[in-house]
């Protein structure tokens, strides 16, 4: 079994490159060899005063939300989301449905007004993040249409 023969000069060069470019991570791979260097550049290490300690769940939830929201249709307003036009009715859409642009996919009630939310484009419903009659905030991911 061959030993690692490390190329110190290369690592030093990568270190300098990181510093120079402000990058925080760099990975190279070639012929079964791989080298990865990281540097926690300043901004990332600024310590956040964290009354966060007391609201850990709220904060922990945030990144997850950010992740799922990438391609999601997000709520344009605060309110209560409904998946069907009446309690217990057939949902406007469900996962797997093909939808056309402009088609109502759910309703958000705000200020006692029902606001239809329509599909921004043709596509297939990949995911529905919310339950019927669930309160939603501004920017909250609702469904994914691809």
């Amino acid at each position, binding site marked *: 079994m061959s030993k690692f023969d490390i190329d110190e000069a290369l690592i030093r060069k990568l270190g300098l490159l990181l510093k120079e470019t402000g990058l925080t991570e760099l990975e190279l791979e070639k012929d079964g060899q791989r080298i990865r260097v990281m540097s926690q550049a300043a901004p990332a290490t*600024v310590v956040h005063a964290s009354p966060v300690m007391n609201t850990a769940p709220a904060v922990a939830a945030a990144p997850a939300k950010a992740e799922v929201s990438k391609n999601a249709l997000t709520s344009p*307003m*605060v309110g209560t989301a409904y998946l069907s036009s009446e309690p217990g009715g057939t949902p406007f859409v469900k996962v797997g449905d093909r939808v056309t642009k402009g088609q109502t996919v759910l309703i958000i009630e705000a*200020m006692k007004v029902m606001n239809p939310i329509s599909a921004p484009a043709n596509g297939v419903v990949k995911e529905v993040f919310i339950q019927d009659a669930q309160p939603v*905030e501004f920017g909250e991911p609702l469904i994914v249409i691809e």
Partner: protein
Amino acid sequence: MFEKVLIANRGEIALRIHRACREMGIRTVAVHSTVDADAMHVRLADETVCIGPAPSRDSYLNMAAIISAATITGADAIHPGIGFLSENAKFASMVEEHGFTFIGPSPDHLSQMGDKVEAKLTAKRFGIPCVPGSDGAISDADAPRIAEETGYPVLLKAAAGGGGKGMKVANNPGELMESLAMAKAEAKAAFGNDQMYMEKYLSHPRHIEIQILADNHGNAVHLGERDCSLQRRHQKVLEEAPSPALNADQRAEIGEIAVKAVKAMGYRSVGTIEFLFQDGKFYFIEMNTRLQIEHPISEMITGIDLVREQIRVASGAPLGFSQSDITFTGHAFECRINAEDPVTFMPSPGLITDFHAAGGLGVRVDSALYAGYKVPSNYDSLIAKLVVHGKTRNEALMRARRALEEMVILGVKTNIPLHQRLVTAPDFINGDYDIRWLEKFVGI
């Protein structure tokens, strides 16, 4: 008492309200724009709702979003804070129509005092002293008599005026007709209308305001005055209570007038009646029908938690004390710390790389800053209030100096250096300033 209060505001005042709720055992709902997701009041609240994007009109001024947030979280009451919707009668009505309590005055009082003309008429009706002058347009023939009644010097103002055009001072009867003719000519040229009115000219007034507090049961008290004469472009910079220009008799007299008026109006909640004060006389400017940024200095000298009382009276509770229970102890200053250049006053939003609040005896910091927080460019630049209290004005002033030395805010520019200059300025030390002093001092 309320179980859950929605705080329809941001920044230090949202945190201030959160603290009061917390101490009353009330759960809090923070509503916030997208850029405020990491704000201190959001981190500390029991529940949070994002109500819109960064621009205020789409979030903190978005009435529908705020009412919806109250609905989905099941809040009992909405505290509007300061600014934004706090003096919006339509919002207050909407809050009440949706079955929530608006923590503030009735919508009627909001609109009454929100209209400058009606506010002045109301003030007059309820015995609050106003700037004397003509009640409308004057004729050349009436001018000398009205000026005599008003008292020289008088200010001649174009009815259609603005920006100082068609505005002249007459210091004595000899100057009156010439000044009037000049002002009319200017007004004619500028606005095509030479109608003029007249009021008393105040050359060196102080800005003095009376804090009042009233419940729904006809009880009202005042918490003395605040001197807010240190202003730049109508923005208050450093306030103190009591005013170095008032004596106890003047305080009691104007306080009594304020309380009587508030009772007669049937006003409830906290409020402030603002005056110009010159040569021992008060002249009504306006009434602020909400909490004020500088409320802590009144709290420091009276020991009364104004936000707690505001919430209490909104819930229908009667005031727990009367005027005779209120004693004034010591002296307080508030330095408004803004994220701005201390010389050019240009706003300086950005990442707070370091925040260290002054501490120790007699020092209170109200701030939603923390190291790592990003001051957004979307809202106003007030980032901290440094409040000090001492047994005497001098003790409080010395305390302000040492606290300013301890205060560290890095990453953005702040006006701390301006405050450090102010607390060592001889005129300020002597209490010898009026509303024009600060602009002269900073040379702007």
